[in-house]
Structure formats: C-alpha cells, structure tokens
C-alpha cells in the first residue's frame, strides 16, 4: 500500500494547482500520500491514530489556507512543510497534556514553522468562538445565519423555507439574529 501511494505521489506543483482549482481528487491524493508519514510520527511519539488524524488534518488545513490565500511559495518540499507543521503541533499538544518527555523521535527533516502554527491557532480560537456563538444563538437564527452568509442563499429562499409572509419580516428577523450573533461572539473571552 505504502509503495502504491509513493508511486502515485502527486508533484508539489500539481497539488498547489489542484487546490487552487478546488480539485477534490488532488486533495484526496495529497491527503492519502502524506498521512502514513504523520501517523508514523505520532504513534511513535506517545500518540494514537486519533491524535494523528487531528494533527494531520490541522496541518492540511494550514497548508490549504496558505495556498488559497496565495501566500504559499514552493520554497521547500510540501512533504517537509507538512511534517514540520505536524511536528510543531504535536509538540505543543504533548506539552499541553504534560506528556512531553523532552525529546521526540524524528523521521524526516523539518523547518521552523512557529509563526504559521501561531497564526493558525489564532484563527482556530476565532472559529471556536464563532461555533460557540452560533450554538448559543439557537434556532431559527442559526440556520438563517448559516443559510444567508455561509450557503449564500437569497432572502427569497429563506423566506420560503421559514414561511415568512413577506420579505420584510424575514429581513427584520435576519437583522435581529445578526445583532445577537455579534453580541454573543464579542462577549466571549
């Protein structure tokens, strides 16, 4: 299996292009190509397969966002970049769990990626806040917000879904929901 994966390993520029073009196939190939490397890193350093999944997905998200934002330059191999991010994330997780014994068994070369991991963390904090705010918001506000801002549904559609008699009522409702969401979001520490 390992050999097959290596044989079909996509080139780095293929991946960057694929992600920019929202290619599902490329994302899948990227994911399956480097997962064994990270699984090896985690399970041989006090982690289990679920930890490996969490860490690896976080790293893929970091890479994905970086490519999408256009900041990514192919200055190093993607493999090295993914490994470095995962390594950094795992060290952080280990010390949070007080399981870090002071050394880590390495399998690849790695780069310093502290800044990127920090940036990713800040973003994660924002997203967690947003998730909590949406939960607190409750229905139907949560769905209205998600439909309008995330799924880009028109007010007309939303009107029909929720059975509002006229678009103005729906707009007023949407406005109130948004104000509450903002309040809930900014109230959190």
């Amino acid at each position: 299996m390992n050999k097959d994966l290596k044989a079909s390993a996509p080139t780095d520029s293929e991946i960057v292009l694929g992600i920019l073009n929202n290619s599902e196939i490329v994302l899948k190939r990227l994911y399956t190509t480097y997962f064994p490397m990270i699984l090896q890193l985690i399970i041989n350093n006090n982690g289990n397969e679920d930890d490996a999944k969490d860490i690896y997905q976080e790293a893929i998200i970091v890479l994905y966002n970086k490519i999408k934002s256009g900041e990514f330059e192919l200055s190093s191999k993607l493999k090295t970049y993914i490994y470095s991010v995962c390594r950094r994330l795992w060290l952080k997780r280990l010390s949070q769990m007080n399981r870090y014994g002071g050394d880590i068994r390495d399998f690849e070369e790695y780069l310093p990626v502290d800044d990127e991991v920090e940036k990713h963390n800040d973003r994660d904090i924002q997203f967690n806040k947003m998730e909590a705010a949406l939960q607190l918001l409750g229905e139907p506000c949560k769905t209205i917000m998600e439909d309008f801002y995330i799924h880009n549904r028109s007010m007309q559609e939303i009107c029909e879904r929720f059975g509002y008699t006229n678009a103005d009522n729906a707009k007023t409702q949407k406005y109130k929901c948004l104000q509450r969401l903002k309040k809930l979001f900014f109230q959190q520490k």
Partner: protein
Amino acid sequence: MSENLILELIDRYLNGDMTAAERAEFETLRKNDANVDSKVIEHKLFVGLIKQYGERIELEKRLDAIHSEIDVHTLKDELMIHPNWIVSMWRHHHSKISVAASIAIFAILSTLFFTGKLNSHNSSDVELLSQKVDQLNKKTNTLVQTTDNLTRQGRTGKPNKVINPGNFRGTGFALSSNGYIATDYHIIRDADSVYVQNAAGESFHAKVIYTEPKYDIAILQINDAAFKDLGNIPYNFKKSLSDLGEEVYTFGYPSGEENFGPGSLTARNGHSGDTTEYQVSIPVNPGNSGGPLLDSRGNVIGIISGRQPEMAGAGFAKKSAYLLKAIQNIPSDSLSKDLTLSTKNTLAGLSRPQQLKKLKNYVFMVKAY
C-alpha cells in the same frame, strides 16, 4: 436611515446584488459618511469570519470523508516501531516511576535519620565491658583445663573441679550480708543461669531478682544452700554526688584474678554528657563491669559500667544514687529476705591494702551462662 436598512444595503453591496446606479449611490454615501464606511468595514470582517468558518467546517467534512477511506489500522501496525518493553514502560510511566523512586529514597533516608543510623556519634561506641568469650575460646579453655585436671589427677590421684568460664563474665558486689548482689544488667542479660564466685573460689548459684536496663543495673540474690551469711558489709553507699578530682578505686575480677584499679574522678558526667555516670581515670578492663567504685574512705559512689574505646584509660561508672533508686524500685514480693543496706563504714580509717583485704570477701565474679 435606520441601522436595519443600512445593514441591508451593506449586505446587498457586499453580495454584489445592487444595480450599477444603486452601487454608485451607495459608494458616494460611503465616501461622505465615515460612520457608514466603518460599518461596511466592520460588517465585512465579521461576515468574512462567518464565511471562513463555514468553509472550515466544509473542508473538515471533506477531509473526514477522505480519512474514512484509509485503512488506519493496517498502516499503524506497519509503522509502529516496537521498542522493547522496558523502554516503552519507561516512556509511558517515567513520571510515576520517578515519583515512586523519590518517595522510596525519602522514606529510606528519613527512616535512617529517625532511627539514628545517620548519627555517627551514638553511644554504641562505648564498648561494653562484658567479656564475651566466644564459643571456640570456651571450648579450648575447657579442654585445657580438663587436660590439666587429668594430668593433675594422674599425679595426685584426687579429682578436681572443672571450672567453666561462662559466656559472660563481670564483677558484682554484695549489698547486704544475706546475699543480695549488685552488678551490671548487660552482664546477665539473656543469661540462662547466673553463678557468682567469691575470692576463695567458691561458686554459688544466684538468681536475677530485679533489672533496670535503662541504667544498666541488675540485682541478684544468692540462692545456694552452700551459701553462708557474709557478715557485716564493711562499706556504705553514698547518696550525694562526689567531687571532681576525688581519689577513687575499683576492685574486681577483670581477668579472673583479683584486681585493684586506682584512679580519680575526672568528670561528673559520663559519655556524651550522660548525667547518670561519672567518668574516672581508672584503666578499666573488660570484666571490671559491675564492680564497685569506692572513694578513699570506702564509700561506694558508683558501679563500673563501661569504657570508651577511643579514650585510653577512661572508664565510666553509674552513680550510686541510681543504684539506690533501683534498690528502692524492687517490688517487695521479689524480696524473700530483707535487703538492708549497711550504714556503717568500717573501711574509713584503714590503709588501702587493709581495705582491699576486707573488701575482697564482698566482691564476686559474676558468671552468666
């Protein structure tokens, strides 16, 4: 314009739902009204965050879907490096192991500390004067004596007594004419039977009637049919403390022979400031233990108890006050006869050799088996 309407406009503006005319109008409004402009920026940021959040959720779902197709279990078995069990145990439990080890070390150290094992200046360096004749020595001596006796027997044709030297030997002295004797507790400790032997070489069986291990004092009573009354005890017992520099001596059987040990009182406290003892400059020998310490007028002022190995010529004697206290502490039902201490001192005016001549009838060799 109400807040509601402005936000509605901003949403439409950001979504690109406006007609070209509306758009131009809104942009002019934005340019002229800083308040509206900052609202647009703020709203854009917040909506952007909601959108990104949505994208993130979407991406995570896609990744999860991909992940579910991977056979993680097989991969894991392939990639796991199996360290030997000691290494893996250390990795998983090193903190627990370290804590356990430190507790163990602490416990050992504190046990040592509290039992005094760490304190090198304890009293065990006082070599107790009990003369322990080891098994081999005893056997050899018995053999030698038996041989001697046999040859003598062969020469004279008369049987002679075989003297067993006993496991422990020390000295004891009479407290009263009817056979009460004081000695050191360590001489008779763990003894099966105790014999006392007078200067004339006669042995009597004795029993231990009272011990005070704290002060190393034991009281024996001769319970032998052959024993006859000793007659009046020539010395008496001093209750008060003796003075530094006083001339003192002891009499005992350190090597089986009568032995006179002269010296002076050099300290009113014993080893390591032990207030129950005197320190004397008598070169006491093993076997002197339990002997009387007398002053020049023939008062018993103490009972020889031990010596310190690193101080040549220094010995220790338990103060007579503790001996008197021990005598008082004897339960009355242990006393089959009256224990009346002598109050008359008939040694006072005599010269030293005369004193010793009288004394030797009242000082015994104590043998414990």
